[in-house]
Structures are given as structure tokens and as C-alpha cells.
């Protein structure tokens, strides 16, 4: 088949799209982080759940409520006319893991945002990405009121593999978030090279 050219002139550019996930506990700054670099105000998509939520949801008193809405915030960065990066904040509650599967499939990598005052909030996300071999970096969001710890201390506290980058950041600052994203992509590159090596040897 010969693909016809648009009669309205140049056909629209169909960009290559990539996604990076931003995970971490509730209130750690996921949406702030997405908003700091996104060219659009973070948008919200919703997934309405029906059957899936039922076994775990305690619906006593609201038996008629058979749907739950899970919101995901996302932003967009147009790197080039034909190359677009999307950032997705993962739903905070652990019981929506199955939505994570969908988000994570085909993801380039992930940022796990951590707050040093409650590091345990990011254990679940670290576990998730480790088990699925999705390259991730830890972004320690340096809240003004929280004590600052060196990256190495955080690494030990989280019991991370030595190759997982730990970056101190400020989720409100564009430059800082850009650096975190660059380290995700770099890490994904190393990860891919190592993976290839382990497959061929």
C-alpha cells in the first residue's frame, strides 16, 4: 500500500514516546516532582475499578459503592518534536499494585522519592522495581525541615545494591529534578549494557 500524504499539508509528527515512573510514599512530593519539569500542568487520569477492588475493600456501610477511582498524575516533556517523555506518578496506596504493572510495562526506569523522616514508606516501591529488574534511582527529597543525611547513609539504611544511584534532590526545583531524570536514563543505559553482557556470557 502506498501511504497517501495528507491533503492538508504536512502529516502530523508521530512522536516516539517514553515513560519514567515517579514512585514513593504518600506526600513525598511525587506530583511536585512531575510538575517541576513538566511542560504542562500535571494532568490526572483516572482508572475506575470495579471487580478488582472488591475483595480488599471493606465496603460495609457503603455496599452500593462497587467502584473505586484511582488517580494517576502525569506530566509531559517534549524533548524533540519526535521524542516525548512522560512522567507518571504512581498511585500511593500499595493495594493498587496491579495498576503499577500496567504503568511499569515498557517504562524506561523509575525514580523512588524518599523522605529521610520516613524511609520505610519507599520500601514497597524499591521491592517492586528490584523484583521486576526495572532500573531505578533513589531521589532523596531534601525537605527544609528534615535533617540532611549523606547519600551513603541513605543507601545503607535502604539496603540498596551498590549500583543503584542515590541522588539528593529538591522536588520543587526544575534543575534538580532534571538531574534526577538524567541519572535514571544513565542508570537504564548501564543496566541495559550489563543485561546484554549477562545474556551473552
Amino acid at each position, binding site marked *: 500500500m502506498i501511504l*497517501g*500524504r*495528507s*491533503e*492538508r499539508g504536512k*502529516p*502530523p*509528527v*508521530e*512522536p*516516539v*514516546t*517514553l*515513560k519514567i515512573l515517579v514512585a514513593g510514599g504518600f506526600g513525598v512530593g511525587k506530583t511536585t516532582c512531575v510538575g517541576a*519539569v513538566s511542560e504542562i500542568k500535571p*494532568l*490526572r*487520569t*483516572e*482508572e*475506575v475499578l*470495579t471487580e478488582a477492588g472488591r475483595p480488599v475493600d471493606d465496603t460495609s456501610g457503603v455496599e452500593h459503592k462497587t467502584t473505586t*477511582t484511582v488517580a*494517576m498524575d*502525569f506530566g*509531559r*516533556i517534549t*524533548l*524533540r518534536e519526535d*521524542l*516525548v*517523555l*512522560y512522567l*507518571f506518578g504512581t498511585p500511593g496506596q500499595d493495594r493498587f499494585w496491579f495498576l503499577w504493572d*500496567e*504503568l511499569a*510495562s*515498557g517504562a*524506561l526506569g523509575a525514580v523512588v522519592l524518599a523522605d529521610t523522616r520516613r524511609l520505610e514508606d519507599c520500601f514497597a516501591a524499591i521491592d517492586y522495581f528490584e523484583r521486576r529488574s526495572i532500573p531505578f534511582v533513589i531521589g532523596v527529597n531534601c525537605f527544609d525541615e528534615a535533617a540532611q543525611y549523606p547519600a551513603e547513609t541513605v543507601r545503607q539504611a535502604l539496603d540498596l545494591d551498590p549500583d543503584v544511584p542515590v541522588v539528593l534532590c529538591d522536588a520543587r526545583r*526544575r534543575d534538580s529534578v*532534571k538531574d534526577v*531524570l*538524567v541519572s535514571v*536514563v*544513565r542508570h*537504564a*543505559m548501564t543496566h*541495559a*549494557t550489563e*543485561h*546484554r553482557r549477562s545474556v551473552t556470557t
Partner: protein
Amino acid sequence: MVRPYAMTRGRTNHAIQHRLDLIAVVVTEPHVDDPEEDHSLSPEHVRIVELCREDPQSVAELAADLDLPVGVVRVLVGDLVDEELVHVTRPVPPAELVDESILRDVINGLRAL
């Protein structure tokens, strides 16, 4: 308020149910002129065709724009693919993510922001 799945006539999935990714891009076919004349289409179908004509949009953006759950948008886009009014370009498959030149472009693009 309209119950969201009323627009899909109760359908929660679609024959082309290869789970459209949130970042799959929907592009209106160039030959499509006036989708409003097609009376089998709902206003939401028409809106998608219009939105994706000038600027192809991701499934996630369409859902946010139309204020509809992602599941509903997937069904509607599936209908439009069947009708050959739009096509969908899939995101980079995970196996090709290791393509270093794409990753280098991403790093350079981020730095240049």
C-alpha cells in the same frame, strides 16, 4: 453526570484489546474529513478524532482531556481504529529501550531543557 461506561454501551474492553498503553499515541487518519457526519459516532468519538488530527495525543492525555477513565478511552479508541478513523502508534517496545542512541537523545534533551 453520565455514568462513564454508558458511552461505551457497557463495554469494558474491546476486540483490539491489546491493552493500549497509556503512552500509545493516537493519530487521526489523514483521509478523515468530518467525523460529525458519521452518525454512528458518539460526541466523545468525534472529539477524539478532532483532538488527534493536528496533534497526535497519548491515551493518557485523551483521558485527562475528555475527563474520562482510561478504560473508557481505550474502548472508544478501539472503535475508531476499527472504523479506520485513527491509528495508534505503539510506544518504544521495552527491548528497544536499550537502544543507546534513543537514550542518549533523551539525556541530551533533558540537559537542554
